[in-house]
């Protein structure tokens, strides 16, 4: 596969390591009321769609960016590649 890195252009998937569902960005509030069950869901309950999936890839053999890759898990077509940091900020994550 070829991942079109937002900063570096098309790169071979071999340069990356794969983590999984980009929902891992949505880490719950540790002081929230039901923090235990929210964390449990965050960590263990994942969707495994046959189709469009947003997932985290790490450019380990490159610039060490974490990317959010929107990929069709059936056809392997890559629809969008974003810097995970931008995605996290857009979701309101900060410090």
């Amino acid at each position: 596969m070829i991942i079109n890195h937002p900063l570096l252009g098309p790169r071979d998937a071999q340069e990356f390591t794969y983590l999984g569902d980009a929902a891992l960005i949505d880490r719950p509030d540790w002081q929230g009321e039901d923090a235990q069950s929210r964390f449990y869901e965050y960590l263990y309950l994942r969707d495994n769609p046959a189709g469009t999936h947003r997932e985290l890839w790490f450019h380990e053999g490159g610039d060490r960016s974490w990317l959010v890759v929107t990929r069709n898990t059936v056809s392997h077509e890559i629809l969008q590649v974003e810097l995970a940091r931008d995605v996290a900020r857009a979701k309101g994550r900060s410090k």
Partner: protein
Amino acid sequence: MSQTHRLTGGQIDSSRVLNFTFDGRAFQGHPGDTLASALMANGVRLMGRSFKYHRPRGVLSAGSEEPNALVELRGGARQEPNTRATVAELFEGLSARSQNRWPSLAFDAMAINDRFSNFLTAGFYYKTFMWPAAFWEKLYEPIIRRAAGLGSISLQDDPDGYDKGFLHCDLLIIGAGPAGLAAALTAGRAGAQVILADEDFAPGGRLNAETLTLGDATGAEWAAATLAELSGLPNVRLMTRTTVIGAFDHGIYGAVERVSDHLATPAAGQPRQILWRIYSRRALLCAGAIERPIAFENNDRPGVMLAGAMRAYANRWAATPAHKVAVFTNNDDGHKTAVDLLAKGVQVAAVIDTRKDAPRIADCELLAGAEVTDTRGRLGLKFVSVRLADGSERMLECGALGVSGGWNPNVHLTCHQRGRPVWNDQISAFVPGKDTPPGLTVAGAATGAFSTAAALSGGSKAAAAALCDIGIKARAIPMPRAEDAPVSLMPFWYVPGGKGRAWLDQQNDVTVKDVKLAHQENFRSVEHLKRYTTLGMATDQGKTSNMGGLAIMAELAGKTIPQVGTTIFRPPYTPVAMGALAGRAVGRDFHPTRLTPSHKWASEQGAVFVEVGNWLRAQWFPRPGETHWRQSVDREVLATRKSVGICDVTTLGKIDVQGTDAAEFLNKVYANGFAKLPVGKTRYGLMLREDGMAMDDGTTARLAEHHFVMTTTTANAVSVYRHLEFVRQCLWPDLDVQLISTTEAWAQYAVAGPNSRALLQKVVDPQFDISNEAFPFMACAEITVCGGLRARLFRISFSGELAFEIAVPTRYGDAMIRRLMQVGAAYDVVPYGTEALGVMRIEKGHAAGNELNGTTTALNLGMGRMVSKKKDSIGSVLSEREGLNAPDALMQVGLRPVDETQPITAGGHLMRRGDAANAANDQGYVTSVAYSPCLGHSIGLGFLKGGGDRQGEIMQLVSPVTGTNVEVEIVSPHFIDPEGERLRA
């Protein structure tokens, strides 16, 4: 003349002779021959024995689809099984042997299987070897494996090298027949970057095999002229002997180039094969078509072959399987074989055409509306029985029979990404569907356009279209005039009736009857049929046999062939040698080797090294007279604890953490607090995973307000860094913190023992005070050594002794170890390796990889209170889960044998005294063991249920694997200096 079946003409160089042997017999062939064509020219029809029934078999095809003629090539370490004789290029001195026969090819004892064929039908193994179950592994399977088999391997190391390569192009053209050549010419003249790959050593495809005219030239002449033009174009890369084996994601294709398979031995430095990864913007499949046989009784006799292959041997290789042949066909194309062989002076007994209205094309007898019902000849064809249109039988004498059931477009690569071929009624065959891999289009016979004119114009147009698609100006170019005959065919798959066996899959010995039996037993899905009968599961993947099976399935089920559907085509297109897949990643080159800065010095000391990940670390340093590793390790431990020892700890991961939020960042990744760590101090940190399990541990030093240096374990250096970047970029993206791995930038040595300070004072520059008062336990500082060399000094201890770690830039690592050893001589300094390091950390009760094994929490490790509840850190929330905090949770304990002469063994489990040794009574397990030279007996660390308050209990340590059962006492894990007085001295 020995080549009794050699004709005139052909594309071989008959002025030169190549000597070769087959089963020890000497033969001669010519450059341009394959092993199959050369054997055929020498009158050899019998080339192998079948997989299951050991039936005598000859060549069926003239290409890579060959199911029968599998041979063993070469000898010694280069012995190579299961090579198709049809694609093995002849070279001087080639030695080939037939397979799966004993004692000889002509008389094979295992052919007895053939007599028992009634018992060896579809699903035979499943039905027969059901019980008793215990017999399978020891009795049934070995016997079956011995009887049913292919070639044998040399069991020696492959002496040849294999390589991998990467190529990029605008257009990859797969196949260099008429369509591929036309496409390459079009794209090449347009200036595009083109790769033209063909599996043959002589590109041209059917242009070399047929008697065609293209304009004023023969097909072969036009192919040669086109290739000459293409090789003059710098933007075209011609790759012969190169099979494109798979269509992978995003325009990436795998290809195997057989660089020196056609040579006796590769030239020096030349690889045997190269596995190419081709990155293409567009690809064009011009893979042509593969002829399919018609099944009839005893259609597997040597001499029965595909009609197109028979005329390919005659036209290209000037070889004929017999001096008198016949043709059996259901289409016009089959008649060409008769025409071509007659033109070469071979007698043609008759053309047997299943169609009542068959046209007379060849100048020989035509038996229209007739069928071949049976054959005769023990080791080769002698007669065929023909049922004529009027129902009468007739025997025809012939030594070979060319069979044509029509042609199947070679759709394989179009299906590699789950594409499904669609049925075309005109040619009664599957053609590529619309769901080809993105960027891949198809031209020529692979689309079902079988005429030469259609292939030429289709190839040119498809190339132009593919290039226009990516913004390269190209247009189809005029092609020479060529035959444009329509396909005329009546579908016909097998001859019905008769009691004998009609073969579909000759490589896996699957008959028409097997398919019928599978259907009768309700294996009706095409995927079930395949697995139950093994149809199409051999090394040829059923290239010539699958369609026949599908047609019979359809007939039995009352469905059409497209309703039955095909099985899924998967890479590789043809078998690939393991060596090509491995490339250079063999032996010591399997992974890179990382050497520490003291490696050269340690080698000089005679160190024994151990692999730790990619690193080589000194394990111990034997001295003269030491004959057992324990002697060396015990000495290193005792000398360190008595005076001073030095160990290279460069391999530990080092991560530089800087920024105004660096302390806050560390607070998030470590379970314990770091925000209040003063500058100039170091702290032990425990890192958890989000699920609360320990991930890694190490020390982190605060060199300045906004500058920390973290250490990780050697094994986790990479994964911890990846995790830190995840936390930094994905969870708290606005923290002002920067990370960089500096593992390779610093050489680091642990200097441990009561005299470590005295030793270091001899290298640390005098303006730096490292006395206990000025530089206490857990201090850190940036200093200079040896008169101005920048260095970092940490007062940390893994051994439990007064100890330091000193880091200098890597390029000074070698000089540093030599200087330390030199000035340390006054204190009898010893170097120590990873074994002594391990012994000392177990004596001190420090956890390491054995304890941080991915299943242990901070609580298990005795560090439960370190997990701060006042801050948000990775893993803190889930580490509070009830199940992880049960009263009988495993806790780290120390173990000592009650009888001090007994060893403690790693991997053993702890049981109460008197309890039976079983899983139900399991109380815990041992993680680390060592012989403690300080205590004079074996010691261990382990995890025990509720171990926090079980000290003094005597338990049994059981290991059924090693037969161990010893009594141990539960003790504190801190065997040495539990109060920590030594390291604060």
